[in-house]
């Protein structure tokens, strides 16, 4: 099973970090391999996932959405119903418990949409860890509610003014903090990117999504699905859903953000339109100029607004194991409206990208076929952006 002992998925992955961090990555890998095998650690994680996070999250048969699309049966994996409103908690809980066992007293994280920041701040409050969250000022502007949530939970939110003031820059600052405070601080990386062992650890903690979905769809239908679809920024919710099905004859579709369109220069479609390179510690696909400088990403969905992607997705792309597509901001908003009106579920703008692509997928399948879409988060955090984009008034008249 990948990664290999150099932290590689085929040619992708690796550990491209300053020397100061190398011993910490080696320590983290050793600790993770040792601790994650311990029966009492596994019981601890399982207990918190059930009684604190509220797992298993439902696999919901979306009858009305299915009818609206007129094709295959659509099942929705309801990660939006997990505590804090997104799948991010699966990973932050696992890493928080790991950090505590490693004797770290402080956790830090980067955040884009704020969901990973909230999930980290939540676990820090739960486990009594000191917590600092790095967030670009552009994202702070877009995601005020999540900033308030983090602060109420006791975390410090550190505004990042550099670069595009979004997720990439927040991650640079988080890494700089980790370089400085590595002896007592654990960096809770939020996606399946970054240097090894993070892509492996985050995947493993998120794989609960696919394990549950697999058992649930079997129980409900007696079969496996034909297709899985999920949005991809860094790629943690997609990898979490896909992983339990890797050996099966099930199609994987990852949906990236095409922003204003793939030719507009304003998008985040790393796998669809990017090229190979090194960013934030890993060799993968990324958005860059001809001289290797990282380009700014764009998406209406802050959680997809990142110019890199996890190395295992890069491997899946090259191996043909998964296919990656992109939908625009506008299409994502259509997806948002569709799910809201047919099922009464407000998806996060990130997840709305996956929902939107169902329109393309549905005609390719028959009525007996099954598609599972991962609803990675709920849309409450996006209501201001949605109100603006869809011109919905919150006033009395």
């Amino acid at each position, binding site marked *: 099973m990948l990664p290999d002992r150099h932290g590689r998925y085929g040619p992708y992955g690796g550990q491209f970090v300053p020397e100061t961090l190398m*011993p910490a990555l080696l320590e983290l890998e050793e600790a993770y391999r040792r601790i994650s095998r311990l029966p009492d650690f596994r019981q601890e994680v399982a207990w918190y996932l059930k009684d604190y996070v509220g797992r298993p999250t439902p696999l919901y048969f979306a009858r009305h959405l299915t009818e609206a699309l007129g094709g295959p049966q659509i099942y929705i994996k309801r990660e939006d119903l997990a505590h804090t409103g997104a799948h991010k908690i699966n990973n932050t809980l696992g890493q928080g418990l790991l950090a505590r066992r490693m004797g770290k007293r402080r956790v830090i994280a980067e955040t884009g949409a704020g969901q990973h920041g909230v999930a980290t701040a939540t676990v820090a409050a739960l486990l009594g860890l000191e917590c600092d969250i790095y967030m670009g000022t552009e994202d702070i502007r877009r995601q005020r509610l999540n900033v308030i949530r983090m602060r109420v939970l006791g975390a410090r939110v550190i505004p990042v003014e*550099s670069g595009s003031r979004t997720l*990439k820059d927040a991650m640079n600052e988080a890494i700089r903090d980790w370089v400085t405070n590595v002896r007592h601080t654990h960096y809770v990386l939020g996606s399946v990117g970054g240097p090894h062992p993070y892509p492996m650890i985050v995947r493993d903690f998120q794989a609960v999504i696919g394990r549950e979905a697999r058992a649930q769809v079997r129980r409900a239908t007696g079969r496996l699905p034909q297709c899985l679809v999920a949005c991809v920024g860094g790629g943690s919710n997609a990898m979490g859903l896909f992983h339990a099905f890797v050996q099966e004859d099930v199609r994987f579709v990852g949906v990236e953000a095409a922003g204003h369109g793939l030719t507009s220069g304003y998008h985040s479609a790393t796998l669809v339109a990017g090229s190979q*390179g090194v960013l934030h510690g890993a060799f993968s696909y990324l958005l860059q100029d001809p001289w290797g400088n990282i380009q700014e990403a764009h998406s209406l969905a802050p959680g997809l607004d990142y110019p890199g992607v996890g190395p295992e997705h890069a491997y899946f792309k090259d191996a043909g194991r998964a296919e990656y597509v992109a939908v625009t901001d506008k299409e994502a908003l259509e997806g948002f409206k569709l799910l809201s009106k047919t099922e009464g579920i407000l998806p996060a703008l990130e997840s709305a990208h996956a929902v939107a692509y169902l329109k393309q997928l549905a005609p390719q399948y028959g009525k007996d076929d099954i598609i599972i879409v991962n609803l990675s988060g709920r849309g409450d955090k996006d209501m201001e952006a949605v109100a603006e984009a869809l011109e919905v008034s919150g006033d009395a008249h």
Partner: protein
Amino acid sequence: MTRIEAVFRQLKKRGEKALIPFITAGDPDLQTTKALALEMAAKGADVLELGIPFSDPLADGPTIQAASLRALQAGVHFQQVLELAGELRQETDIPLVLMGYYNPILQYGLERTVSEAKRLGVDGFIIPDLPLEEAGPWRRLAVAAGLAPIFLAAPTSGPERIKKAGRLTRGFLYYVSVTGITGARQALPADLIAALQEVRALVQCPLAVGFGISTPEQVQGLAPYVDGVVVGSAIVQRVAKLKGPELIKEVGDFIAALKAPLRGK
């Protein structure tokens, strides 16, 4: 023998230590960098370290991040930094070391980087996000071409990694003085000298220390324990503040002041 090795050997004979100043190439423009580099070489620098601007310099503090951004805004890219090194090589024999993050080098091509650097008279590279584990292919190409792949060791490294870095590095071993990012600091870690003594006992190669060193007094305190001292942000701060002849003179004077305590008795 490479130019870097020759310099450390000569200095050792004279009982001197190397001053290794860093500036970001193209900050605020390439002409200024060239003038600064020649002035630094004239005023006592022994090895010059030129930064390749990069959009996401994650081992650097605010001072060098800002320098990188100024250079990028001036449109400076890796090819131009190589060509600048070539121009400098026409006018000085001082060893030239390029400091740059891995992705721009990777995009340019490892083999192409090595052959162009060699052709233009570059002597070595410091790539802060390319640790020993990932450096194999780069190191083989560089060493085969007679370029020095210069590795770093940090306070977190531990004896085994320091020994390995000392074996694999060429030119010198760059010891990072602080657990942290680049940037001038008022005070260096209290245990730095003990750490340098420990490193010295673990490696055979020349040893230079850098990160946070900003005053002649700090340089003087470290000189007995190392073969060279790197000063970066303290110079870059001056580049950010001053312009024209005033900048050249200020940096020249600063280099002379930093070099004085390294000249031996």
